[in-house]
């Protein structure tokens, strides 16, 4: 195992943890965070795989793809956050619920202080 394999494994771990969070968390900002983290995990794998062959000569093609991906991820994050704020302003709740009137409490939400 070369040292650069560590980054590929870290990318796999980041992707899986973020995927779990995207599925289980209900808060929309957390979902956007998780999608961002999934993207960065993919970037790590994408860049660590060619660096494994020869760490001194960088492969320019994955670097260009990752560079484009970062910029696209920022734009997509801005769009997703705008949509989340729209949901919040329409329903008054930062969770996606079927019926905003009978919004079931999120398991992540803290208990209201009694």
């Amino acid at each position, binding site marked *: 195992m070369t040292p650069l394999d560590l980054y590929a494994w*870290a990318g796999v771990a980041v992707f899986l943890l973020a995927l779990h969070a995207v599925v289980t968390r209900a808060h929309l900002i957390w979902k956007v*965070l998780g999608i961002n*983290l999934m993207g960065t995990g993919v970037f790590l794998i994408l860049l660590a795989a060619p660096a494994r062959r020869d760490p*001194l000569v960088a492969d320019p093609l994955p670097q260009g793809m990752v560079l484009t991906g970062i910029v696209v991820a920022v734009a997509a994050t801005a769009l997703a956050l705008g949509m989340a*704020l729209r949901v919040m302003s329409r329903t008054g709740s930062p969770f996606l619920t079927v019926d905003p009137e009978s919004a079931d409490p999120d398991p992540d939400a803290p208990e*209201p202080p009694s």
Partner: protein
Amino acid sequence: MTEPLTVGFVLDGLVALLLVGLVFRLLRTRHLFEAIMLYVAYGLTLALAWVRLGAPDIALAEAALGAGVTGALFLNAWHRMAVRAGADERLPMESDP
């Protein structure tokens, strides 16, 4: 050549461990503000990882866009949600002053 390689291995391992640990804590915490700050720290650690992978241009883009602009976007969204929520205690937002 073997001696710097070993020390470099420790550095790579620490960066990778920090990446995974930050994501683990970020996605399991309860406070949204803490998650956003940890996301910024994660972006900076990722820039270090890309420096180690021999791609300083991506590190530049990640530090400026991935950590800075995205962190500011998340802070903006968090602030607007918290302001709109007002005194709604149901929302999982950190409220200790």
